[in-house]
């Protein structure tokens, strides 16, 4: 068996986290936020960024206690092999479900925006096969592609937002507190579930070449960066598509790019931006498939993850096609991820941290530190 140690730098780590969390902006996220907080959607995001930064600090304290080890190994070490395995499986199920749901939403979005007559399964397959291929090539390949394409994606988003400048109407952001202080604070806390996906940095901690202290900074940077970028999109969305209508679109980002009109030749560019967000979707799905496969491999201590990729892809495909229609698939965000996501991503690791502090278990370098291929 050839053991190849994969070590990623901090730029690649940040890229992974940014794409893993940020891809939702291309789907219904701006709409969901407007539904929850009306014109104060951006305030919800601001609050949840701070909440999740707090949670992340606790999470990174847990990681700092066991330097060089992944969250999976720490869970097993602190909680014992059985409960630890249970927690790892919880993470596995959560990421599996969220990746499946994203796959469905992306497929539906493609059908809505670009290929109205394509069957959803065909589009889903075309999303899954490249993601599977990339996962087969390894974490290195995915993280590098992510890092390389990130500037292009960010520039693409900025171009859309800036091209809408003629339609920016700041008055649409009033009243500042939107749905009121109560809902804003409540959803500000719950919305941290969205940022909770920063947990992949903890899951992949053993593949990074830098120290835990840097990892903490990378996590904070990713949260702040994604937060700003979400706020920008939400604010522009609310300014360009005013409040009652903002809660109606299935694909707000597409609607934004559709609204661009800067002269006769700089218009109808939504199809060009389809390339941008489908590309991001590929990255996000590939990271999802990869992380799920690594969780299985590290939890069950099997030497390779490649042979289980077909099975994982098939399960994600089935999960994606389980909702009977697009609305049910979209409702997943509101009914499942929002209320429960933070439990899996933040509350459970915090509990593990509590146990680790109370029992005072010290870390040792992990047996399975590094990627084996």
């Amino acid at each position, binding site marked *: *068996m*050839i053991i*190849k140690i994969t070590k*990623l*730098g901090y*730029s*690649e780590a940040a890229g992974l986290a940014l794409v893993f969390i940020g891809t939702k902006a291309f789907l219904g996220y701006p709409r969901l936020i407007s539904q929850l907080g009306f014109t104060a959607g951006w305030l919800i995001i601001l609050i949840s960024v701070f909440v999740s930064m707090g949670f992340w600090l606790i999470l990174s304290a847990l990681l700092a206690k066991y330097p060089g080890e992944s969250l999976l190994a720490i869970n097993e070490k602190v909680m014992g092999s059985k409960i630890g395995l249970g927690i790892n499986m919880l993470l596995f199920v959560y990421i599996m479900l969220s990746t499946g749901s994203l796959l469905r939403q992306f497929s539906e979005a*493609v059908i809505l925006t*670009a*290929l109205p007559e*394509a069957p959803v399964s065909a*589009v889903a397959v*075309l*999303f899954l096969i*490249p993601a599977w*291929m*990339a996962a*087969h*090539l*390894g974490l*290195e*390949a*995915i993280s*590098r*592609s992510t*890092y*390389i*394409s990130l500037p292009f994606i960010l520039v693409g988003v900025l171009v859309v937002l800036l091209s809408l400048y003629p339609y920016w109407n700041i008055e649409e952001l009033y009243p500042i507190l939107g749905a009121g202080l109560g809902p804003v604070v409540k959803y500000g806390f719950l919305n941290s579930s969205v940022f909770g996906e920063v947990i992949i940095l903890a899951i992949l901690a053993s593949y990074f070449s830098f120290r835990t202290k840097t990892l903490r900074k990378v996590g904070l940077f990713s949260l702040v960066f994604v937060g700003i970028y979400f706020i920008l999109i939400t604010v522009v969305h609310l300014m360009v598509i005013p409040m009652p209508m903002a809660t109606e679109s299935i694909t707000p980002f597409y609607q934004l790019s559709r609204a661009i009109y800067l002269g*006769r*030749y700089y*218009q*109808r*560019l*939504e*199809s*060009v931006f*389809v*390339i941008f967000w*489908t*590309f991001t979707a*590929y*990255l996000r799905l*590939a990271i999802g498939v990869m992380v799920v496969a690594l969780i299985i491999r590290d939890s069950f201590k099997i030497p*390779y993850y*490649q*042979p289980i990729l077909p099975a994982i892809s098939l399960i994600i495909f089935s999960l994606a096609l389980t909702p009977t229609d697009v609305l049910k698939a979209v409702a997943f965000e509101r009914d499942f991820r929002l209320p429960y996501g933070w439990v899996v991503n933040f509350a459970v690791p915090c509990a593990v941290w509590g146990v680790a502090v109370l029992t005072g278990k010290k870390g040792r370098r992990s047996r399975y530190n590094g990627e084996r*291929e």
Partner: protein
Amino acid sequence: MGNRQDNGGEGSSQQKERDQQEKQGGLFFEGIKAGLSLLVFKEKTPVDNFILEGVDERKQEKRQKEDVAAIRTGEGDKLGKEARGRERKLRKKESRMNKKPMRVKRLSEPGEVITLANLLVSPELKVNKEYLETIFSLPENKDFVLREFKIFSDKPTDAFVLFMEGMAERRTVNEGVLKPLMLFAGGKDSNIDITGSKMAEYIKEHVVYGNQVDIEEKYEDIVEKVNYGGTAVFIDGCPRCILVETKGWDRRPIGKSETEQIIWGPQEAFNETLRSNTGLIRKSIRNTNLMTELIKVGVQNRTDVAVMYMKNIANPRLVEEVKRRIEAVSSDYVGESGMLEQFIEDHPFMPVPQIMATERPDRVVAFLLEGKVAILIDGNPHVLIVPTTFFSLLQTPEDYYLRLPYGNLLRLLRIVAMFIATTLPAVYVAITTFHQEMIPTDLILAIAAARETVPLPTVVEVFMMEFAFELIREAGLRVPGVIGNTLGIVGALILGQAAVQAGIVSPILIIIVAVTGLASFSIPNYSMAFALRGIRFLFTILAAAFGFLGVSAVFFIILSSLSSMKSFGVPLLVPKGPKTKTESDVVLRGPVWSMEERPDYLDTLNRRRQPRISRKWTVESEKRGDDN
């Protein structure tokens, strides 16, 4: 009994049939297995495991010191034992190398197995002649000339020379070897009466003119040199052979570069002779640190492969890995750089090349000084450079020779060309098939009007024209030169014009295909241009099926496979994926004087290329620039 026999006979025939069926079934299953094996995950070969890293010299030194100390103290500890073991092995190896081969008997004796490796020159001239006649199949093999003569002296000695017609220069053989031996060897003051092995020494020192003269006694070495244009002199009574370097065959003169033309900068290109190629490189790097190591490849053709690198710059691990891979190639014939490339590259099935081939000495020189390794193959004008990065495949030497703004303009143009060459037909197919709303109304009306008479779907049109274009390109290359020009005109003008008039394709498509073709010609690396041509079809097929989603899928697949590729331990997409420290020379480049360090990913021994302030005239005091 008979029945039984019959039964047995039947049984055996049935058995045979069954066997045959099983065999067929087995074959069938083996076929399925072979098919499945392509899909099923396999462990990677160890070659992927090589990652280029810096050499920790301190560790090596420490280990050597420990070894020496352990040997000196003679302690019985494990380390000492290990070190002594290593030393003993080394000595044993040396002693085996020093061992002389056995002197074998005459060929005519029956039952004697004689190989070339253990055959030595005999003192008897007749015996040597017999040996050579057997080895070179003389006189049937007309390429080898064996000329007998007598060495001029008081007591004329029998001798003969052997050389290969066509490889050895006739004039040198006559003037530098035969003439001195036949006319001047035994002058009045000469000591030509000395005999035995001293004779060879005497002739080497006093008689023959050749600038490279060796004395050999093993036939293995003699044969190798004669095969490569040397002339062997055998003398009666002397158990050694004098080998004079008389190489000289017809060669192509150094000409202009055919495949990598530039306007600004040196124009000369490599030719097919290894030694003139190494000379061209040495001419530009007048430095003793430039190393040329020769390795022989090809079991039958025994081609010389030269590995060139800068001893004080290149990472020793990289050099080791290059030599290891070349030495490990075991094949009958490796005679071309493209073949050697296929033998030593990391990912043989990927479209993008991982080794750069160039025919420009200036380019090789620049890469050598960067810390890369050049591989030259005898008989080949293309030199391989390893490791190679993706971005360097899109650059030309002219980018550096021209002033900064012009060089960058060219590079930007080429990047745009790369995207056009791969995606333009795909984007056209996607837009006209799925995303018509993207096109401004006037333009879409124009396209629709042009396509009105065309009965075929866009993708068929595109494939037809692309195919025709590739056909023109291939035919233009293979057609004899005289009618080549005519073909270009026929292909481009008449075919395109006629296709439009016949209503098979729309005029706008001709523009698309022509621009794509132009863009693909502007890719400087020949292999890379091939890769892009192939990828373009993949883009077009998926765009025809899924529109922009297909385009983005191919982008994603290509980017992730590029990110996973390595060239001799260096990721193909450095310095962007993974991110490494770099001077401003990736897609665009900075000013020449700002490139202070060699690329980080090569982990060179000497990192600094020039001091922080290389334009010392910009500072008033000369002391402010640190020295290199």
